[in-house]
């Protein structure tokens, strides 16, 4: 028997996010008279419990076999609705989404044409829905082991949590020793605890943990496979080891801003000008610059942070407190030294931070608001030139020690690692999380998670918390023991394929390979993530992606390309407003 689509259309108000600019009612009515549409409804929040119930009841009561929701970007909610429809035994791939928020109501004024665009989008979704095919989601078992890249505080903490939960962890560190940047610090803020104590405790546990294997002076050289079943090449020394892991945690850390990029501050020219990191070494007993105890110390904040000119528009988050700590240490150790801090805003936001900042001022540290413009030599000393913006006067402050609070920057090798792991980067250059709020440790690559400063500047506390968050998220597939693999994957029409391999070179997941004898390409359904890059590259249209087939996409284009205003005729289907 031939398949006849019974489509339900559900238009979401998203509160006023959509309803304020799009005539939701009109869209709903228009959709009702589209071919195949059985019911068309609108509701304030489709994603809410009652909204989903609405859809599920219709599937049951009206025997819908295809569902279209017109609301927001599928990125967030497609899983929600797929889950909803499959809960009432409709194949999740029989669901289609029209994005009338990001692609319509949010970017257009409230106007008839905006409503018409919404209609076009809904119409094209309906046209596609009619051609949708149910797809089978397969499950794959997971390897109960994890790989952690980076042996800093983040990597170690993540490794420990996962190992404590009973899974094998391989910790790969490129340098010879564990500890990362934290190892270079003297004391921590705001407790002034010796970093060494804090660190050594963790290193001890990592090194002696039965479930943790540490590979120092090692690097990940290749990554294949997919969530639950990654195959990783780790190069250490001249041999390369193959690992099988179920999850990967990236904790590759950060680089420190090169103060030479702000030449006017004289770093490199004047020995008196050092960075906060160098101060830490000094503070650990390396002794003061050319042995002389400084009488006048100036700290300068935001060097390489909040600086659009140098392409670092972001705040490095830790410098304010690092400087407060160091300024305070100077006052403690050299009670007669004048200590001045130049700042733009003091960002003491963490637990106990504001109190610590109060303490620093209480200890006699002078905070002056202003971003110093240059440092000049004046005899024995250097002089810091700035405006005290609260005095409204330019000032010159003499110093025999100047400490530049250098910001955090993405690691130089971020690009390379991003390539290996197919990770996206945010505009600031750090690795990009799947969702800035609700998925801060996930990435676009299922099974690969972010921990610590490789995702953005963080202090130790936040780094550890986030590392443990990454651990928890990584544990989910490991503990479940299986993962669901994407069903919307690519497939090759051997009749058309000329085996030119352009698709293979474009595939980010190594899912395509040349058949040894047939001379045509073969797609590995488990590796394929359904991104569709192959399909666009193939000149003969030999590759298509399920759920985005040529016919389905053409059907969508047909509707959108029809620039005539959608006409509203009497709706044959049931129109109901449930809002």
């Amino acid at each position, binding site marked *: 028997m031939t398949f006849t689509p019974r489509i339900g259309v559900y238009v979401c108000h998203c509160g006023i996010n959509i309803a304020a600019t799009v005539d939701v009612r009109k869209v709903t009515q228009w959709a009702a008279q589209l071919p195949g549409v059985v019911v068309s409804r609108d509701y304030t929040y489709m994603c809410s419990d009652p909204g989903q119930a609405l859809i599920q009841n219709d599937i049951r009561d009206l025997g819908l076999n295809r569902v279209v929701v017109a609301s927001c970007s599928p990125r967030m909610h497609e899983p929600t609705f797929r889950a909803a429809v499959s809960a009432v035994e409709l194949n999740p791939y029989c669901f289609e989404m029209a994005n009338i928020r990001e692609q319509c109501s949010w970017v257009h004024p409230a106007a008839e044409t905006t409503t018409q665009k919404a209609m076009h989008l809904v119409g094209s979704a309906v046209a596609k829905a009619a051609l949708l095919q149910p797809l089978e989601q397969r499950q794959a078992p997971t390897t109960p082991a994890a790989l952690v890249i980076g042996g800093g505080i983040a990597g170690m903490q993540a490794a420990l949590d996962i190992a404590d939960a009973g899974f094998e962890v391989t910790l790969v560190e490129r340098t010879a020793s564990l500890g990362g940047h934290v190892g270079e610090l003297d004391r921590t803020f705001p407790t002034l605890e010796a970093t060494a104590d804090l660190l050594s405790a963790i290193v001890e546990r990592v090194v002696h943990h039965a479930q943790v294997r540490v590979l120092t002076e090692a690097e990940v050289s290749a990554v294949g496979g997919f969530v639950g079943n990654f195959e990783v090449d780790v190069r250490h020394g001249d041999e390369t080891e193959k690992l099988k892991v179920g999850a990967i945690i990236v904790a590759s850390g950060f680089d420190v801003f090169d103060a030479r990029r702000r030449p006017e501050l004289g770093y490199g020219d004047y020995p008196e000008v050092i960075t906060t990191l160098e101060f830490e070494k000094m503070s650990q007993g390396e002794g003061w610059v050319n042995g002389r105890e400084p009488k006048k110390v100036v700290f300068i904040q935001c060097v390489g942070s909040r600086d659009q000119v140098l392409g670092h528009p972001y705040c490095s988050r830790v410098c304010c407190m690092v400087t407060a700590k160091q300024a305070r240490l100077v006052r403690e150790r050299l009670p007669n030294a004048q200590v001045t801090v130049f700042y733009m805003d003091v960002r003491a936001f963490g637990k106990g931070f504001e109190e610590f900042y109060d303490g620093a001022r209480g200890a006699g540290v002078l905070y002056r608001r202003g971003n110093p413009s240059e440092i000049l030599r004046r005899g024995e000393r250097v002089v810091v030139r700035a405006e005290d913006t609260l005095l409204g006067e330019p000032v010159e402050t003499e110093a025999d020690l100047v400490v530049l609070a250098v910001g955090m920057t993405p690691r130089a090798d971020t690009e390379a690692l991003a390539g290996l792991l197919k990770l996206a980067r945010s505009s600031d250059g750090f690795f990009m999380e799947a969702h800035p709020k609700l998925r801060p440790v996930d990435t676009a690559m299922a099974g690969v998670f972010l921990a610590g400063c490789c995702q953005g500047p963080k202090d130790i506390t936040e780094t550890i918390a986030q590392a443990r968050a990454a651990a928890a998220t990584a544990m989910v597939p490991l503990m479940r023991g299986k993962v669901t693999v994407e069903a919307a994957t690519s497939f090759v029409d051997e*009749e*058309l*394929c*000329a*085996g*030119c*391999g*352009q698709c293979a*070179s*474009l595939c980010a997941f190594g899912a395509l390979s*040349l058949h040894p004898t047939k*001379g045509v390409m073969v797609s590995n359904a488990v590796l394929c993530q359904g991104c569709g890059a192959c399909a666009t*590259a193939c*000149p*003969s*249209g030999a590759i298509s992606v399920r759920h985005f087939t*040529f016919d389905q996409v053409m059907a969508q284009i*047909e509707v959108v*390309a*029809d*620039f*005539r205003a959608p006409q509203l005729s009497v709706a044959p289907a049931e129109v109901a407003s449930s809002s």
Partner: protein
Amino acid sequence: MKTAIPVENGDVLASVRGFLARLLESGTLEAIYVPLEDGSGALIPALVTDPARMARANPLAPVMPINGARAVSALTGKKAPGRIGAVLRPCEIRALIELVKLQQATLEGLTLIGVDCPGTYELPRYMERRGQGSIGLDEVLAAARDGRDPGSEGFVLRTACRTCLHPAPDPAAIRLELFGLDPAQGLTIEMPDDLAAKLGCAAASSEGARRDVLEKVVATHGAAREKELAGIHAQMNANGGLPSLFNACIRCHNCMTACPICYCKTCLFKSASFDHKPEHYLSAAQRKGALRMLSDALLFQLTRMNHMSASCVSCGMCTSACPSEIPVGLIFSAVGAQVQAAFGYEPGRSLEDPLPLVTFQANEWTEVGEAK
């Protein structure tokens, strides 16, 4: 090394034939791809194994019935079945290299025998003239010697040849050098030392005038190319623009068949994807007011351009094949030149250069992608 083989009483072709025969006799190669002449003077691209058949070989005739790259692709597949040689013009070699990158051929086990190319004529014109005996190989070789355009009044080279910037077969292991050729000095052939030793070829006495002549040729072609491209750009930017250039297209797809690089087994436009339902035509017509029938003529050209422009070596076979005399080759060259410039890519230069469309550099966002 640069060797020279003697030329008996000025008959360069004989020497070439002799050389090719020796490659077979010596067992250096099992077979050689080279055009053979029939009595009428028509040229048949052929794979020759019998040295005797070389008596009819003529890789010097100023015509190119097909671009040999496709033939070599067929010969080699993923690996050449034996020790095979191929006598090819520079544009054929460049097309072949693109095909290799597209995994449609391989250089493994293949020996490229390149020939300096003074240019070719449209096949029908040439046959006509030749019938009248009004053109011979000597004129062509003489022109090559001096770096002149062999063309005469009312009888010009194919546009692609007049505007060719790569008349020398650089990537080939064996190169027959015609530019600056002085038969008295013999025919200079560039070949690997071991081969020279094997065939007992003597080293060439002098460098000869080739480099200067070549420069001159490239210069004249360059100028011609500028002129032609400017012309076609003008038309593309004129009213009607690109579409109007293709108005004469009759959807015969000859260009596609003639193109050495257009390699799909079945063209997308012959696949099921483009057999539209009747309603499609009606709704499209309703949308536009009028619909060209059969549709997808312009779309076909654009799609081919999209697929080929990066790899187009400007051999011009498409133009030669077009019954409507659309300057397909020039249009592709014009568009191709821009695409190739954008990606800093020169098709056919080297296997080392990756295909631009399957490699991605971040800076391409702004340089190639539209500026924000």
